[in-house]
């Protein structure tokens, strides 16, 4: 009895998973861009930028993602701003994970030995060039494990946007459960799909790390 309900609904679940992947990819992209910009401003910017980034990181990290989603979904319409669920969800999650990504990149940039800076400076390089060809290429490698870790958290957190009515994997699963009264089978299937996505990403990350290590 277990496989049949799962098998007959598997296609639906995969469609939910597709939406989950879309949300994850978009959020990973925008939160990385936000995080990188924030990390660079925090490390090399003038003091107003550094303070602004600190405020952003501490405030956003200190508030549950669910609350931020509620704020966007229920709060903003009150002030006359209507955001569609998909771009809204991506926006809120990008802001949220951007704060975590900024710490991932900041740690990597700061972990690079000062000696690399000395060497680049002694060749007459200036900040943008040093960042572009010496610091960031190495920081990407250093940040890989923490970056993958954050991406995995991010993928799983997309299940929260089901609350604001986006039919991603978790939402689709719940809808099927309501229709079939087979919570155990369906939710197990949902969990399995999340696991496969996250595990693949972990392996991919490990593989990329090893490739990068061999290249050096």
């Amino acid at each position: 009895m277990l496989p049949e309900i799962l098998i007959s609904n598997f296609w639906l679940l995969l469609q939910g998973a597709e939406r989950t992947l879309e949300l994850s990819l978009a959020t990973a992209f925008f939160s990385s861009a936000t995080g990188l910009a924030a990390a660079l401003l925090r490390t090399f910017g003038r003091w107003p930028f550094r303070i602004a980034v600190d405020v952003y990181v501490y405030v956003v990290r200190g508030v549950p993602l669910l609350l931020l989603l509620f704020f966007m979904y229920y709060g903003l319409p009150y002030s006359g701003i209507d955001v569609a669920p998909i771009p809204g969800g991506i926006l809120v999650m990008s802001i949220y994970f951007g704060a975590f990504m900024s710490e991932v990149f900041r740690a990597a940039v700061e972990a690079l030995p000062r000696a690399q800076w000395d060497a680049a400076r002694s060749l007459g390089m200036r900040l943008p060039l040093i960042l572009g060809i010496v610091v960031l290429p190495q920081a990407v490698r250093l940040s890989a494990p923490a970056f993958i870790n954050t991406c995995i958290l991010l993928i799983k957190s997309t299940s929260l946007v089901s609350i604001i009515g986006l039919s991603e994997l978790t939402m689709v699963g719940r809808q099927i459960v309501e229709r079939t009264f087979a919570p155990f089978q369906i939710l197990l299937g949902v969990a399995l799909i999340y696991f496969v996505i996250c595990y693949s990403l972990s392996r991919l990350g490990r593989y990329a790390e090893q490739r990068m290590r061999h290249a050096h």
Partner: protein
Amino acid sequence: MRTDDATVAPMVEFRGVSKWFGTTQVLRDISLSVAPSEVVVVIGPSGSGKTTLLRCVSLLEEYEAGEITVAGEMIGYRIAANGERVRRSEREIAAARAKIGFVFQSFNLFPHMTVLRNVAVGPIRVNKMPREKAEAVARDLIGRVGLADKVDAHPVSLSGGQQQRVAIARALAMQPKLMLFDEVTSALDPELVDEVLGVMQQLARDGMTMIVVTHEMQFAHDVADRVIFMDHGAIVEEGDPATLLANPRSERLRAFMRRHIQGWARNLPQNPMTIERNP
């Protein structure tokens, strides 16, 4: 190697240079002039300020008082019309650094670049030299330091001595007017020291102006035109190597020499140990 013409303008000049780390003074009123093609070796106990002195020339460290000029141009600062010291723009500072070669104790090669890229990247990205020309220059330099077969290797696959030779080639690729060497053999296994010193000796023969911070007394004796002994941030003694190393005048240099006596001293005409016993 030194041009003995007294009228020739110095390549490097320190005038009353002082530096503090917090409240600790690490350079005390340093004045020193280095002529073009001269090789000056700086010796002294650790913490004596030799590395800091070198780093100030490339403005890898700021200095608070005095001035350092390289080829007549003040490093890091200029004197404004009202007599105040004004920090130069980052562009000017970078341009000055590009003409000063710096070789570090721990090599500091870029680990994500091949040997060829390490050497060519400065000329390409800073001097805007066309890639093909820069790579030709880089290949030539890598060949001259004896690593022609390693152009495509990454630094991690090289020995310390090989990495340091690449670092020298990288600095030379910028066609510097002056080369600074900061304890470049201190991180090397003893059997790898000579290959690096050999490259430096050749460079000195070719007429490069060099300031070399080192503990290699034999190198100081054989290659230096002048030896500077520093202690507690000040120049305690200076002179030509044969005289200074064989006949230290100050007690501090004698104490320093006692600790660095092995090996090289046997080759000196007079053994400082005997001087020590019969002052």
